[in-house]
């Protein structure tokens, strides 16, 4: 278990990595930081990173809280596909934008509710519980689109993907809004504390009177909503829904973003902004590799390498070897007195 040392030093690896990746991009591509205004919207590689990173950042926001409760949501990619499929199909059928948005978000909410009930009430392990929807979700999306790639022409929905607000692209605006609302919801209320408490010790929290089932359902519902927004953005951007490929494997990017952001898979303390930073690190790498003209195959390998470095920087074992103030040992290095050869079992 990593013990969160308070203070800004803890966030250094994330911000450091983001800056390093951005600088690397700049070296490869001197125009990287160039931003221009065109038709009332900002353009440039940096804006591109933000814009393309928005879906994973949104997923990461929801995923952060799920992971903080010691869970994981594998279904977010499938939920994106469902919400996108509903949006495209309904728009194609002539529904108004508010109805389309409401239906897509409601689908995300229902998916989250399903996951939450499996985890909180039926007490199925999160990885299994959400695997069900990960598999079934794409099937549902295909049913909605009747196996076709559905396209639409409505400029109203497309605006969400390619429009802009005060020169900022809509996906970025939506991400900021969702991040802000989420942060407000958990930090201005006691929800954040309860999420962390449940993640650290569900039994103790329940014993203290925390409504653990409601907390758990809430985080999965919120995660489903975030995924639905991400799905809307992707569909609006490409003006169509591809039930097979929308959001494919993005759950893994989202989990990675959260972990790179420093939230432990063992639950407990979480940082929403840091997860978004994690998502941006991942996207900046994608963009950089694309710009550099390397084969896309490199993408995965370079990505894995950089992630390894970020994770190593957070590892308590490594911090042992880094210089530190005299007498201040990283507490996280303390081995719990477990009986020997526990074989990875958690005491």
């Amino acid at each position, binding site marked *: 278990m990593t013990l969160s040392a308070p203070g800004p030093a803890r966030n250094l690896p994330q911000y450091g990595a983001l800056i390093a990746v951005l600088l690397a991009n700049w070296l490869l591509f001197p125009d990287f930081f160039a931003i221009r205004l065109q038709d009332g919207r900002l353009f440039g590689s940096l804006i591109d990173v933000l814009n393309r990173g928005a879906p994973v950042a949104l997923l990461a926001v929801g995923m952060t809280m799920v992971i903080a409760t010691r869970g994981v949501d594998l279904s977010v990619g499938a939920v994106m596909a469902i919400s996108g499929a509903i949006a495209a199909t309904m728009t194609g059928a002539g529904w108004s934008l508010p109805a389309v948005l409401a239906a897509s978000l409601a689908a995300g909410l229902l998916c989250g509710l399903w996951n939450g009930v499996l985890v909180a009430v039926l007490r199925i392990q999160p990885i299994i519980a959400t695997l069900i929807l990960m598999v079934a979700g794409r099937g549902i999306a295909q049913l909605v689109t009747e196996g076709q790639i559905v396209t639409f022409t409505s400029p109203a929905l497309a605006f969400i993907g390619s429009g802009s607000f005060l020169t900022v692209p809509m996906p970025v605006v939506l991400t900021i809004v969702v991040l802000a609302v989420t942060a407000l919801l958990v930090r201005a209320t*006691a929800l954040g504390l309860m999420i962390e*408490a449940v993640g650290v010790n569900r039994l103790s929290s329940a014993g*203290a009177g925390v*409504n653990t089932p409601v907390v758990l359902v809430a985080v999965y519902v919120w995660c489903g909503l975030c995924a639905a927004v991400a799905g809307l953005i992707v569909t609006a951007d490409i003006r169509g829904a591809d039930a097979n490929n929308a959001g494919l494997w993005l759950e893994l990017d989202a989990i990675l973003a959260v972990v790179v952001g420093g939230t432990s898979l063992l639950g407990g303390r979480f940082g929403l902004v840091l997860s978004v930073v994690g998502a941006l690190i991942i996207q900046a790498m994608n963009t950089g590799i694309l710009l550099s003209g390397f084969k896309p195959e490199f993408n995965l390998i370079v990505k894995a390498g950089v992630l390894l470095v970020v994770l190593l920087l957070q590892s308590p074992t490594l911090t042992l070897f880094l210089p530190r103030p005299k007498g201040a040992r990283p507490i996280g290095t303390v*081995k719990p007195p477990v009986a020997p050869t*526990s074989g990875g079992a958690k005491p």
Partner: protein
Amino acid sequence: MTASTAPPSAPLLAIRGLSKAFLGVQALDGVDFTLRHGEIHALLGENGAGKSTLIKTLTGVYQRDNGTVALEGREIAPRGVEEAQRLHIGTVYQEVNLLPNLSVAENLFLGRQPMRWGLVDRGAMRRRARAVLQPYGLSVDVTAPLGRFSVATQQIIAIARAVDMSAKVLILDEPTASLDAQEVAVLFKVMRTLRSRGIGIVFVTHFLDQVYEVCDSITVLRNGRLVGERRTADLPRLDLVAMMLGRELEAAAHRIDLGPAEVDSRPPLASFKGFGKARSVEPFDLDIRPGEVVALAGLLGSGRTETVRLVFGMDRADRGEATVDGRAVRLKGPRDAVRLGFGFCPEDRKKEGIVGELSVRENIILALQARQGWLKPIPRRRQEEIADRFIRLLDIRTPDAERPIQLLSGGNQQKALLARWLATEPRLLILDEPTRGIDVGAHAEIIRLIERLCADGMALLVVSSELEEIVAYSRRVVVLRDRRHVAELRGGEVSVERIVAAIASETPNVAGSGAEVRQ
């Protein structure tokens, strides 16, 4: 067992100038400690004095900053628990840290399983497990997962494991905290046998009676420093307490003398009729009046813990009814109980009590916040006030309220849990082994505090293996046997003799309904 090769003059274990600092805390500061062959040596001190840290530094759980440790004259520096075990040092740490998902037998032989043809010999392991547990009169199913058993049973299993491995040194960090008198007697018999074989035993406890019963010498720590080493025979109890606290202990708290008539005339605060749960406790009737201290006494596994868990909704009763203030209430879970103004410190502090990674402040305000609901956050400033008030009131030793609670010493964690409930100003406080691991000074303080709260009308339902403690502060004792409430003693009837008699008045039904069968 390996024969000793060192000069016989060298003490079994010689610790010199041992130091260990954690962020912001000098937990050990140049401590000396000497353990001789064939000696039971008490290591004493207040909560947070550094006893557990000494043990963990000695056995390689933590790496020391300074100092030397010599085993029979040879310097050792184990880099982990395993290495300490290879040096024939067996340890029971304060928090039982076996693996709940593995079977009892696997836990006993973890890392040293009997092998045959390159495979674990399960049959031999089971047989040897039974043999290892036999001296403790514990006949459990050794193939059942450890997590199924009570804290006390797990503790005995941890002790048996350590004893089985300690060919030279046995270290016991508060092993008796959840054991009752009978089990303690068994443990002491085992310890005396080991002593007669020349093994040295380090024994940490807060029960001074036990110190005077088995220990040959005493080393006292205070604030991470050595206060001194004495022969038990030369150290009167009052002097020992003064050594530990650095001051005299104020006169022991005496029982609240509310006239029984006065309390009995009050309408019950909570009342349970035919309350029970299949395979847990037989249906029982229980009235608890404001200002009253009701104690539950009985042997391990007699249904004491099960009773209080039902009362708090931690386990769900499947029969009977509960009324509070004369109104029927649902007790579907702890949340219902918290809303009714109940509070509950469970027996298993680590598993069901603390939220380890969260700060002391967050742990203290958690129940209050949960009762207020998530929409009404307690302002940070107010949280800090509450935390600081209880840190002072209960003398919780921590550098500040923001430290993760898991870094506090065991006794201080216990105090923080008590603070969590006191912060909710409960009407009924339920404590399962409340003074476990709390030092003599703090113990007296806490009892005084509880008496004050009871005088203000709080009711207390307490499970304790300490009969003297029960007699000292309760005016009604419910005695349990075989998961059934069998007797109730009131007022003048409450005495250690009467409780013991009630517990033993019938030959126990050995085929009890639970998993644990005791001889």
